[in-house]
């Protein structure tokens, strides 16, 4: 991952959020407070603003770190600090000026660890972790198997998507949805859904057009 790819990834995520914020908000309305799409939209609009002004020489890690800081400053809610801290930790772990597949997988693992440390959620708690963890695991496996970024990110996107869908039958144990107890069952977690968008965006920008 280099500067351009990091920027492209964040822009593609911003575009996906812009396009699907209503869906995210509706998922959140069902088991949360109905603002997840609005929150991320506000955050990624600010990230887009940041990217527009960015030094083209900035290493990819600093792109992610600064995007994470922007999310923390703009999103609020649970998802802002979680995504923000994840991106910040990932960015900090990413070597400059370019990172290979294994570097990227490790950096995103570092991001996930930060997210989990802050939020305290494990896989199965019906949160973004349920999409994030399998996506990172898929990246790690693919890196280990020597896959290209295109192949690896496609696998990660699939895994994130499957993880998001797998939250449907779960009972939430973290975040606002946990107040619902068993009534959180049969709803897809909004944060896991936006995580799937994040990894789909990575796959998208990693494929030649």
């Amino acid at each position, binding site marked *: 991952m280099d500067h351009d790819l990091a920027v492209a990834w964040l822009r593609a995520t911003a575009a996906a959020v812009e396009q699907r914020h209503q869906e995210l*908000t509706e998922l959140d*309305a069902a088991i*949360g*407070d*109905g*603002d997840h799409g*609005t*929150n991320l939209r*506000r955050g990624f609009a600010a990230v887009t603003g940041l990217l527009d002004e960015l030094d083209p020489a900035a290493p990819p890690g600093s792109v992610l770190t600064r995007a994470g800081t922007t999310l*923390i*400053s*703009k*999103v*609020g*809610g*649970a*998802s*802002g*600090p*979680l995504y923000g*801290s994840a991106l910040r930790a990932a960015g900090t772990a990413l070597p400059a000026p370019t990172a290979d597949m294994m570097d990227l997988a490790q950096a995103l693992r570092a991001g996930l660890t930060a997210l989990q440390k*802050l*939020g305290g959620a494990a896989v199965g708690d019906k949160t973004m972790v349920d999409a994030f963890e399998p996506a990172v695991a898929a990246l790690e496996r693919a890196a280990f198997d020597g896959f290209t970024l295109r192949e690896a990110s496609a696998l990660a996107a699939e895994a994130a998507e499957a993880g998001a869908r797998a939250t449907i039958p779960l*009972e939430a*144990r*973290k*975040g*606002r949805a*946990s*107040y*619902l*107890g068993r*009534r959180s069952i049969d709803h897809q977690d909004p944060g896991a859904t936006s995580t799937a968008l994040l990894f789909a965006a990575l796959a998208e920008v990693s494929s030649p057009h």
Partner: protein
Amino acid sequence: MKKLINTPESVLDDTLAGIAAAHPELTVDRAARVVHRADAPRPGKVALISGGGSGHEPLHTGFVGPGMLDAACPGEVFTSPVPDQMLAAISAVDGGAGVVFVVKNYTGDVLNFSLAAELAAEQGIEVRTVLVDDDVAVQDSTFTAGRRGTGATVVVEKVCGALAERGAGAAEVASIGELANAASRSFAVALTAATVPAAGKPGFDLPGDEIEVGVGIHGEPGRRREPLRPARELVAEVVETVLADHTLASGDQVIALVNGLGGTPLHELYLVYGEVAARLAERGITIARRLVGNYVTSLDMAGFSLTLTKADPQLLELWDAPVATPALHWS
């Protein structure tokens, strides 16, 4: 959606403009999204800071002033504020005697305030946090995010503010806040759902004559849905529910808050208060102090919450201490 707003995006900023115009005694930093006492920082005084999503007014901005908060950080509607706001608040009101955050227990608030505390610590400023979690509608277990913070926030901010005003240290201020929180239990009933401006429609459907029992202040669904009953029965059940989770016995004193959720008129709140008072009197519990009105609201939601704080002489004395804020004012 029928609201007196300009655009959903500008609700917070436009509201802050109104607060700024209405309260020359407060400083409203619209860019930083911080409302603070105009006379801050006060050297030697612990800085008491709170905040949370907007849409619960007068909480928290209406509780800024002598005897209560030094600063409030209003987030977007129903969305916790971001750490930058808390840092801006600290730099506006920190008098060098320590900082205490009052945080309602929601994941978003907890995370953002704790990031802020971390960042402040990096600047050498130690922050203590009082977590408010009084809503008995949520089971407090490792399988939930824990009890939500609701009406008790008013009590916590009042008694912490009174103690801070007298020059108490940060540890002491935080510990009276924890004590007030531990002595408080709340429960809410919604007659209608709130409409978040950005969403444009009610957060949940509440058909015909149904009510949401145990609702959260962001419209989080409650324990169950049931038909509306006469206030007497409904309030009796709410009182039961709060007491079932409380350690109140005959002879005890309480501070009682009958709080409107935003869309319920005052005469109904008084009617509810009358029923609460009658039920508590039957059990020999004395309401030593009370508030009846809109204090911790949920946008335009109709309904009410009941908060009972077991009161000892110290809490009562701090409750009675002078306060001069937009929403609470006595001397």
